[in-house]
């Protein structure tokens, strides 16, 4: 139980990119702990390195200094039991596979029986509201539905950790709200530790238990805000809650400030 206290541990993390001899410091001395089952949102202006940070947690980018541990283990490559959803669904889904085969993709490295696999895929598709679209191809679906497929794929192996990199930045506003509720419902039901990167402060507050605000580059943690809004949250009620409005004002001030 002690271990689950800090499921993700980020220790003095820095990242420097080199480009033709010129060094660009993106992240500086970031330390952060995320407890098991917690939902955190990483916010900041566009281009400050939010995506770099989440890609480092995903094991896709190596730190220049410092370390990331997940469940006590040092991250050097994408960890097992992680789901990762990116902004650009049209590029991360495989157009030659049907929806169900896209969702079943992570099973290729497991040796679970065909019938279990089928049942699990059907269950996950049901949970993202795509039960009737299993045989369709991604390019036959709308953007929001494609992102649902990507979400289903990230959930099919029952991950303990879900990483969302601007997942709703390419869908329309209405779909965004729908997908926010979809994600919130699933991760709280299954107690999945979740990290979302977003430039949308309202979205961050609406979804997260804690909002981490990154400063301008080189990015470091400039503010951490606890969001003590009652769950389950609802788009209409929560967003008009005075506590929500207050947090929002506070975060916008910090983002503009300095």
């Amino acid at each position, binding site marked *: 139980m002690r271990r689950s206290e800090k499921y993700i541990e980020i220790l003095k993390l820095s990242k420097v990119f080199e480009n033709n001899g010129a060094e660009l410091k993106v992240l500086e001395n970031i330390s952060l702990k995320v407890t098991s089952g917690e939902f955190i949102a990483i916010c900041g202006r566009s281009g400050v390195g939010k995506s770099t940070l989440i890609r480092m947690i995903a094991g*896709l980018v190596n730190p220049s200094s410092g370390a990331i541990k997940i469940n006590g283990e040092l991250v050097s*490559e994408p960890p097992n039991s992680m789901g990762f959803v990116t902004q650009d669904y049209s590029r991360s889904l495989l157009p030659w596979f049907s929806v169900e085969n896209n969702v079943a993709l992570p099973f290729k490295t497991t040796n679970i029986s065909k019938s279990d696999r089928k049942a699990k895929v059907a269950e996950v598709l049901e949970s993202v509201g795509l039960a009737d679209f299993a045989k369709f191809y991604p390019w036959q679906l709308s953007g929001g539905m494609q992102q649902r497929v990507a979400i289903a794929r990230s959930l099919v192996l029952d991950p303990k950790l879900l990483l969302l990199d601007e997942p709703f930045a390419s869908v329309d506003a209405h779909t965004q709200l729908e997908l926010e509720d979809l994600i919130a419902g699933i991760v709280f039901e299954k107690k999945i530790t979740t990290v979302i990167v977003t430039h949308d402060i309202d979205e961050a507050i609406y979804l997260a238990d804690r909002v981490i605000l990154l400063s301008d580059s080189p990015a470091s943690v400039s503010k951490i805000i606890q969001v003590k809004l009652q769950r389950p949250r609802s788009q209409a009620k929560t967003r008009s809650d005075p506590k929500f409005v207050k947090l929002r004002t506070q975060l916008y001030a910090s983002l503009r400030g300095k």
Partner: protein
Amino acid sequence: MIKRLSQIVWSLFLPSLVLISWQLISNYSPNPFFPPPSRIVTALREVVSVDWILTSVKSSFIVLFAGYFIGAILGLLFGSLLGEFIKMRIIFLPICNFVRSIPSIAKVPLILSIMGLGLSTRISTVAIAVLFPVLMSTVRAIAATKSELLDLNRTLRFGRIRGLVTIRIPAAIGEILTGLHASVQVAVLAMIVSEMLGSGVGIGAFIIQSQSTFRIANMWVGVFIVGLIGIALNYMFLKIERKSAPWYFKSKGLM
């Protein structure tokens, strides 16, 4: 239905015009190299027999298909490996580029003197001609895998070979098919040239023999048959492309 019919009528308009004018003009022209189409049709009736098909045409088809498949499969195989493994690419690509730069016509005498006359020589000529363009387009297509898909491969922990087979090759299939399609023309060319240079069999040999014995109408028959084979293969490929990678050809506005 009517739209489709009018499309067919319009697409036949220019070829008919050319044939009719050719017929009319050649009736008054003494040029022996352009016999009127009616005479070519007569020659066609005389030339094309079961026997002729079972020798010349069959031989050409064997050379074309066997050569194309061997070349294409080797090209896909090595192209995929070279696309995936950067070190292999650095080692092999300069040689591939060099061999590819030599036109297949220039390679034919070389292959002839090494392998002698015979069916296997002609098949090899076609295979070598097809191999390099297929290989190069496959390398290029695989190497250009989108970074999102490479990330996906890593987060799914697929590893290199599984990733290559499950993600990178299918993702490149549109461009690979385009390369395979372009190589059909190369294959037909290599087939004709290898038959013309001393084999004595096949449509290429028939064309060159008819020309040297001054049977110009027969020569035209051979030329037209090669054209028809080209059109048929092209049409077949269009069908295959649209069936196997509809998302790709749709996104290119080709469907």
